[in-house]
């Protein structure tokens, strides 16, 4: 189990409170598809992802961004139990969706960059370190049911 200090818990929550899921979710998801275009392979049913403009306007991309951030909210509220919180989601991504678990890390990086754009210098190096520890624990939990 991951150990969290009081400072780490409060930093993660403080960063999370500043994030508006409806605003930032779509941006993060579009960023993943644009910066790491091979991830588009998982979204055949999302329609037009052929250009950056199409990705930025695609409603299914936007909706999926919000779904993913709502799931991240569960991690923020269950920092001591992420593996169990994400066991079902991990199974789903492994067995049904067949997502390469390296993709979770790419998403984590895009989340951090989007937050850096928004918070700017408020995302101090120490806050970044804590936030990345949190995201890598999430990535770990999401990879946990892969064999």
């Amino acid at each position, binding site marked *: 189990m991951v150990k969290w200090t009081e400072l780490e818990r409060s930093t993660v929550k403080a960063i999370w409170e500043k994030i508006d899921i409806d605003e930032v979710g779509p*941006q993060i998801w*579009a*960023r993943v598809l*644009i*910066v790491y275009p091979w991830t588009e392979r998982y979204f055949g049913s999302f329609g037009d992802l052929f250009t*950056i403009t199409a*990705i*930025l306007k695609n409603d299914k991309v936007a909706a999926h961004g919000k779904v993913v951030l709502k799931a991240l909210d569960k991690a923020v509220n269950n920092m001591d139990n992420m593996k169990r919180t994400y066991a079902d989601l991990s199974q789903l991504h492994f067995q049904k969706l067949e997502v390469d678990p390296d993709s979770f890390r790419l998403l984590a*990086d895009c989340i*951090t*960059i989007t937050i*850096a*754009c*928004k*918070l*700017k*210098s408020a*995302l101090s*190096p*120490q806050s*970044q*370190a804590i936030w*990345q520890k949190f995201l890598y624990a999430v990535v770990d939990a999401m990879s946990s049911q892969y064999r």
Partner: protein
Amino acid sequence: MVAWTDFERVTIKDIFSKIDYEVVGPAAISRCLIVYPWTQRYFAGFGNLYNAAAIKSNPKVAAHGKVIMEGLEKAVKNMDNIKATFTELSTLHSEKLQVDPDNFMLLGDCLAIVVAAQLGKDFTPEVHAAFQKFLAVVVSSLRRQYY
């Protein structure tokens, strides 16, 4: 040889013209030393790196940050020949400094975060993608002379 689109060339030059090397270089390297503390092993000669405050105020860290930015500027001015531009630096990091090449991307990630924080919403997904590609080429060139 890497193929650059006009958008990518213009974007990279634009980013480097907007950032202040004296701010971004030190910020990126000190972030790297704080977020990925094992990287401190390469800077034993820098004196006090015992905590984030010490790292952020350490003049040798700041000076090294500027050196790194000047190195990157060479890549920006020679985008069609980054491999050749960094041959000597690659040999230096491999044979003399014995730096684990995985660390290059850690610094790259910290640089991306600092640039994202500086540019805010101007660090759009397309700009981010171009910057990430540039960083990947730089890292690959620095890895080149390792066996």
